[in-house]
């Protein structure tokens, strides 16, 4: 699992196109600078190495020229001392050359004399390395690792070879200078590149800051909060971003206005619904009230008859109980219960009383199935409002004499409320309101969707979602809301 996540992250990092602009542009600039600096350093260093080698050749040539001229007279006469004197005197005569030894050899490859006579004895054969490297040729051999260079030169008199000159010189200082230059190049270029890359990064970050601000405000829109970008930002940004901010703010203002309008419409709808409920309730109160008054009349007229009295009192009691139920349901719904953070089974059970007027006039059969057996940690009034809205919608949509079914159940810490009607089917654009954030499309055409829009807003606030299904007849709406069970609450406490 971890390996898979790591691979995903790796893939994302590898996809340069997916990098943020804020990283991509400075990295690109830094990459170009590093490439440029590396190329320039390479060229400069290569040129320096070439110059140094060329200088070394010139120096060694000058050294050998001078030495050849110095040893030639003695070499012709094979005068050991004179040649030694020439070699000895040349030790410190050549600036820039640090000879380790010089050998003057005869044409038969025997040492006539060397500057280090103990190492290269008179008349001894030349060292094998020198013969192997140079053979009968003249030349220069450089061993950078050892910090040494060797050279060979044939000494001629009137065109005839009279001997050969070999020398080993110490070029460690030369190579050290080369290394120092390389290090200096790397250090200076590295520092400059890093400085420019960091400068570029921060400059671009500053230039792209308005984009971050815009993204932040767009993200807020996604979360339901539509705010214009404050004017304070406008003065500090480029013209293009200013235009973008202006357009965003215009859009934010329009959305905000729509939201306000939708809120106002929702409020009106709420009052309208309240009016309908109130008239329904009045009807529900009025119906038993007629019976109650009849019962009282009967008691007054035939109160002496115990059977009639008992029957009338029972009727009176049922009528008053019905009025009490309606009044209690209205009270709980619009005034709020004692604990708004809990949903008790009875919070839902009295909803049928609130809609009995709707069901009554349409002669609907309400199939009520509340399977909640314990209090749930969820906002009770909001759940009641969601259920009531859906129930009212279902009643309105169902044909006369139809059936409306409501079930409420809780499993796996999810509260599920299902409302089924036998209506023509909820239009899809209306159904979409249930799952849209409040700010996105506040209200809809002809205010018909305000109830659903409010329901969707509440579902969204509680962190739930709604599914709208279309069985062969009617509509089935399933609302799922997260809850914390009482057992878990107790355990936590």
């Amino acid at each position, binding site marked *: 699992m971890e390996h898979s996540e790591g691979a995903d992250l790796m893939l994302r990092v590898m996809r340069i196109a997916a990098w943020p602009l804020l990283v991509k542009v400075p990295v690109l600039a830094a990459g170009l600078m590093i490439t440029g600096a590396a190329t320039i350093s390479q060229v400069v260093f290569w040129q320096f190495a070439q110059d140094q080698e060329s200088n070394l050749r010139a120096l060694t040539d000058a050294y050998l020229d001078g030495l050849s001229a110095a040893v030639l007279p003695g070499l012709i006469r094979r*005068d*050991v*001392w004179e040649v*030694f*004197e020439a070699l*000895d005197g040349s030790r410190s005569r050549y600036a820039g050359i640090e000879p380790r030894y010089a050998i003057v050899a005869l044409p038969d490859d025997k040492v006539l*004399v060397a500057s280090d*006579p*103990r190492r290269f*004895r*008179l*008349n001894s054969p030349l060292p094998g390395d020198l013969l192997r490297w140079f053979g009968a040729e003249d030349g220069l051999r450089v061993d950078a690792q050892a910090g040494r260079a060797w050279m060979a030169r044939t000494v001629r008199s009137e065109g005839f070879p009279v001997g050969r000159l070999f020398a080993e010189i110490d070029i460690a200082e030369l190579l050290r200078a080369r290394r120092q230059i390389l290090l200096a190049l790397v250090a200076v270029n590295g520092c400059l590149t890093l400085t420019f890359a960091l400068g570029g990064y921060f400059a671009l970050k500053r230039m792209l800051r308005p984009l971050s601000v815009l993204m932040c405000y767009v993200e807020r829109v996604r979360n339901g909060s539509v705010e214009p970008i404050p004017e304070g930002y406008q003065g500090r940004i480029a013209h293009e971003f200013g235009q973008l901010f202006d357009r965003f703010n215009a859009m934010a203002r329009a959305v905000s206005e729509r939201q306000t309008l939708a809120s106002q419409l929702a409020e009106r709808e709420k009052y309208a619904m309240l009016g309908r409920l109130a008239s329904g309730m009045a009807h529900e109160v009025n119906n038993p009230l007629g019976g109650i008054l009849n019962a009282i009349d009967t008691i007054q007229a035939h109160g002496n008859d115990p059977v009639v009295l008992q029957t009338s009192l029972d009727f009176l009691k049922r009528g008053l109980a019905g009025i009490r139920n309606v009044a209690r349901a209205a009270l709980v719904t619009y005034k709020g219960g004692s604990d708004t953070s809990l949903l008790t089974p009875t919070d839902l059970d009295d909803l049928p009383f609130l809609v009995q007027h709707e069901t009554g006039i349409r002669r609907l059969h309400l199939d009520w199935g509340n399977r909640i057996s314990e209090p749930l940690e969820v906002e009770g009034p909001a759940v009641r409002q969601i259920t009531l809205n859906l129930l009212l919608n279902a009643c309105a949509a169902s044909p006369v004499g139809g059936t409306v079914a409501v079930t409420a159940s809780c499993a796996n810490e999810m509260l599920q409320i299902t409302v089924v009607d036998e209506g023509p089917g909820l239009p899809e654009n209306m159904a979409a309101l249930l799952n849209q954030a409040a700010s996105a499309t506040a209200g809809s055409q002809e205010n018909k969707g305000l109830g659903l829009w409010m329901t969707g807003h509440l579902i969204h606030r509680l962190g739930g979602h709604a599914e709208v299904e279309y069985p062969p007849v009617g509509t089935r709406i399933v609302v799922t809301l997260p809850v914390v069970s009482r057992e878990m609450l107790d355990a936590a406490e």
Partner: protein
Amino acid sequence: VAKAGEESFRFGLTPVFLDNDMTLLSLLQAYLAQQLRRPVELLKRRTQGEIWVMLRSGQLDAAWICDLTYVQHQERLALLAVPLYHGRPLYETYVIVNKASDAKTFDDLHGTVHAFSDPDSTSGYLITCWMLTLRQAVPGRFFRNVFFTYSHRNTIRAVANGLAESGSVDGYVWDVMKEKEPDLVERTRIVFRSEPLGFPPIVALNISRDRPDTQRLAAALLAMTSHDLGREVLSMLTLDGFTPASPDLYDSTAQKWNIVRAQI
């Protein structure tokens, strides 16, 4: 006082002494010019042979030569003065080796690379050849290799640097260099000292002996200890002064030369 435009007195020098010391040469030149009351030109040559040829051909008025050169041309040369070293007109020949050498005696030098000073030098050639003659040997076969340095100082350098494993030098030069250049000389060791021999003399051709300048030169050398400049020169040369000498001072050298010459 030397007069301007006057012809110089030409005095020849060979590496019988420390001829590489420019301060010494300038002081010697100044002293001689002062005493001779005329310009003095010091002429240095690499070999004894060159100086003898210049003297013989009139290119030199006088010269400080090796005792062997004097012995070789004694009949044509007049002794003007001889240096006093440690109070005597004598010096020794040293045969030296590198300090790292195992050689203890002259015979241990067999098969070594040997440095001579000059074929016309007593200490730098003759004595070693005489020793070999006594052993019925010659340098070319006794030594593995030989070469000439044309200076006692160079012979010491050659042995000290390892270019030569042994060398024949003037004992006076070796002693003086030991004080002046101890780092160099201490890398060498003496394996043989000769008997005392007549010190290299200052000579002129017999035919010039009685010339005033020649006489003034002899007088200047003999009176060197009486003058500040002269004493300074002597001090630098580590000599006690100059003395008149008779030819028999060089009899021993002549005898050895004759022995060697007979074999050659």
